[in-house]
């Protein structure tokens, strides 16, 4: 096919395109000219039979034909669509999207996982224990005096066989140390139970995270450094900690730990009740009697432990004013997390 014939072919193809009245007709034109066994393919195959000096021109014309025809086909396709849809009405992109949405984690799980992730990054691993505990693990091994009020039936749920529902996650410490030699570095999130009458800040069923680090030469300065890092990661950069002396049977010295208010930065606001600080956790150096109970030598090793309430942190971070909301499981609440 020479150059002149090729030009004619182009005219013919464009004319057929213009005349095609349906998508099917257009597709037929496309296949006839541009298809795998189409006219243009034949032209290219025949190129080698042309005199060498003509080949560039024919090649160029064939290319022109291809591009112009493709453009014409595209335009005509659009024109045909426009014709069926009517004039100038664009798709309403403001319609609601339609894809199933992700579910959400419960706020208590979110806080737990976040705290666990922070401590895992410091080399802590998660340890677990049962909700039903022995009196020994829950109280005795944790240096709780025999007459301590928390042992009372008014405060702790006992089962018929004398075991109890753990009132803190600390028995996980005991279980873990009984089975492992130092170094021990664990974080133990879990459900706890106290015989509290439910109200806005009390729930008979609640969650704690316990932390324990035991090795040679662990000091209160280590505890401070670790909790300080945690405060910044959990509540936001710039959040600081402070210790106040306190008393727990299983640690000595014992402290309560406040975080500087993540909302006002310490200036005082509604969240921190104008004090600039929020009480978050209890901590201390593991009491030598706890080490003795698990067969560790308190002269050789030391350690720190800390514990915090997950509900409390969730309530502070999310601005939840009633603890019962966390267990209502209202979908309108859950979907916000």
């Amino acid at each position, binding site marked *: 096919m020479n150059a002149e014939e090729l030009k004619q072919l182009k005219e013919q193809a464009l004319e057929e395109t213009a005349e095609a009245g349906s998508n099917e007709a257009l597709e037929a034109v496309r296949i006839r000219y541009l298809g795998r066994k189409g006219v243009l393919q034949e032209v290219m195959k025949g190129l080698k039979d042309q005199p060498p000096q003509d080949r560039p021109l024919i090649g160029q014309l064939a290319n022109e034909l291809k591009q112009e025809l493709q453009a014409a086909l595209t335009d005509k396709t659009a024109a045909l669509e426009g014709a069926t849809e009517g004039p100038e009405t664009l798709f309403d992109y403001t319609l609601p999207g*339609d894809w*199933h949405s*992700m*579910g*959400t*984690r*419960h706020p208590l*799980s979110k806080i737990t*996982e976040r705290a666990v992730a922070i401590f895992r990054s410091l*080399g802590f*691993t*998660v*340890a*677990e224990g049962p*909700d*039903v505990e022995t009196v020994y693990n829950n109280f005795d091994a944790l240096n709780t005096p*025999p*007459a301590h009020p928390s042992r009372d*039936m008014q405060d702790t*749920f*006992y*089962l018929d*066989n004398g075991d109890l529902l753990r009132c803190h996650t600390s028995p996980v410490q005991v279980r873990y140390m009984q089975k492992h030699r130092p*170094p021990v*570095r664990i974080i133990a999130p879990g459900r706890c*139970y106290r*015989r509290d*009458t*439910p109200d806005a800040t009390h*729930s*008979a*069923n609640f969650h704690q995270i316990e932390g324990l680090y035991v*090795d040679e030469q662990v*000091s*209160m*300065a*280590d505890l*401070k*450094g*670790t909790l300080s890092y945690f405060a910044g990661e959990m509540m936001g950069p710039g959040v600081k900690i*402070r*210790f*106040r*002396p*306190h*008393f727990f049977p299983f640690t*000595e*010295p*014992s*402290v309560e730990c406040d975080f500087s208010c993540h909302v006002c930065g310490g200036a005082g606001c509604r969240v921190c009740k104008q004090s600039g600080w929020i009480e978050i956790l209890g901590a201390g*150096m593991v009491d*030598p009697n706890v080490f003795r109970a698990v067969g560790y030598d308190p002269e050789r090793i030391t350690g720190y432990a800390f514990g915090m309430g997950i509900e409390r942190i969730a309530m502070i971070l999310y601005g939840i004013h009633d603890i019962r909301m*966390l*267990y209502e*499981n*209202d*979908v*309108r609440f*859950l*979907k916000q997390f």
Partner: protein
Amino acid sequence: MKLPISWLKDYVDFDDTVEGLSDKLTFSGTEVEGIIRVGSDYCGVVAAEVKAVERHPNADRLSVCEVFDGTDDWQVVCGAPNVAVGGRYPLARIGAVLKGGFKIKKSKIRGVESFGMLCAEDELGLSENHEGLMELPGDAVAGTPLSEILGPPEVILELEVTPNRPDCLSVLGMAREVAALYDTTVNYPDVSLVEAGAAVESATRVDVLDPERCPRYTARILRNVKIGPAPDWMRKRLEYAGIRPINNVVDITNYVMMECGRPLHAFDQSLLQEGRIEVRTARAGEVIRTLDDAERPLQPDMLVIADAANPVAVAGVMGGAGSEIRETTETVLLESACFEPDGIRSTSKTLGLSTESSYRFERGTDVGETEWASRRAASLMQQFAGAETAPGVIDVFPYPPAERNIVCRLERVNSLLGLRGSMNELLRCFALLGLPVVASDESFCTVNVPTFRGDLEREVDLIEEFARLYGLENIPERSPSGRIVKEANDRRVRALYACQANLCALGLNEIQNYSLVSPKLLDLFDGGKSKERETLPHPISADQSVLRTSLIPQMLDTLGKNHARQTHEAGLYECGKVFLHQADGQSPVEVERLCAGLYGPVGRERFDRRRPVAPDEMFLWLKGLFEGLMAAQNVGGWRLTPLENVFLEKGYAVQILLGDQPIGLLGVVNRSVRGAWRFNEPVGVMELDTNELLVHAFSIREIVAPGVYPPVERDVALVADCSLTHDEILRVIEQAAPKALEKVELFDLYEGETIGAGKKSMAYSLTYRSWDKTLTDEEANEYHNGVKRALRESLSVEVREG
């Protein structure tokens, strides 16, 4: 404990603001929970005498008074019921500013002019009392500023004293703390006595029959006591501390208790049989009427103070009404004793009677100061009750405790706290706290523990003392570091978190329900098998009295509550423990479960949500969810079998098996159970043993490379009896098809009149693809015909061409 600051200042001198003191106390271990300010300078308020009272012409409850303020008479309208001619009351003159910035102006009340206001206690900020006008003493001279009558304003600290520091439950105990914090000394009050008359030994006798539970008992005799009110300052201090004043003798015992922490008791000796004391346990059948006028039966393990015949006090808890101080009392037997804490605690608990006295004895009192407290009270009774103290004291103290010395090593202090403190700092701290050091060198010191610090028993107790005085803020923060713990393993928990993330990706919202449930709720689901549940013997309420045996009941309840709140759909899951009751007194076995629940058109696309949901759809959504979860958790080899179940709809209930082991169930809840929450639409639930889903969470499987040759798709439609299952059809197709069958998909399912009753039409799309070449149409047709033939022959169904 409530600590009036003026009282504290009687014993320790320090120069600081209330806020400064409060901070120092909080950061040394005694948290200040509140600061109460009582009174003010009452500027513009004076004592006034009411000269005349008349009914207000326009109001029944108001009166119009003529009031003299020392210089002039004023007309004042008053609404108080207790206003009386001749009475003295505080008058806020015009211009005075009361509590809350309330300014007194000349005003007209129901048409009558009023020049000032007669005040009740609450209006002056003295208390919450608004029952009537505050009555001033009859000798108050009209015109005297109220501040001169009431004295200066007071600040009261509300302290949280930790259980290890009973010594801080007293003003002197706190004075010791304050002295340590401000590097000053405690001035103990004078306890000198002028003794007269016959010696105490001739006047009474004390027999302690249980010295273990009463390590020390002292008694003094005070004669010629004149009962009357205690001085105002003492009454006021007691009120500030939260104790109701009664009479001078009783108030003095309470005052000394607040002062030094030692609960005392005063008996009217004339009301004691034989005038003597026996400390013993109660005898069977003994009963005592206590000061609160309650008859209390005594148990044989309760320690009592008795006279020659009967109990006259429950030791350390409360005195008896029969020997109490009354207006006619002349001779007082003053008890200052030390009781062992555990016995007091159990007695107080058994009687349901907690007092300031039992509170202190339960926590431990200082045996060393027993006699001092008695002397102090006697000295005050001499001053304020006209008492004459009989010479001497009976002091039964058979086994004084041994001296206690504790060695404290500097190296231990520093290594536990992460410090580099010096021995001088350590010694200084002990000196400030009043803890005598009996020996020391550069590496250790030995502390002789005074009796008022019974909590100090071990080296670590001293380290804590040092830490709180040195200042926790001065302990450095050391960057987190530590040895990696090689054998530590928390894969299970990580797998669980990943599983929960997958459930969220599948579109479910996580819930958390209590572990304790109502037995009534469980009845719906287990047919009332209450013996298979762990029931708490002492629940808070019946609603939370049983440990849950399944997550499904509360899931249904949660779905139902949301439904009741007009939420039209929900897809929820919970991961939690269930508790399986064991026979033979074993504790319940805890099993981790995963539960999902659905209602409403959760599986539909947006524009098709109003059409009612059919049980078929609900079941298939649930099954799809289950399949998706199993795929995400790498769990293969599961199968479903039909299940008979009390709460699931027949036909829409299956058991989930892994191998041959049941691991859960899924299905659509039956009408009677869902009716309990007024559901008129299908509700789907699923419950699984979580741990089975976690085993392979982190397993890695080799992938199958996707085929590169083009596929050939062929459809087959068949009409079959409704009883024929998809599974059966699949099995035939898979058996008949060659290796090249890559995929079978059901793409249409239809039941309707056009194909006849009891029949259904099912259309499958089959994809053939060869691993090593492009399939020709002829080859594909041959495969497909084979499939169709097999379907016709094995299942006797009508296969349509397509």
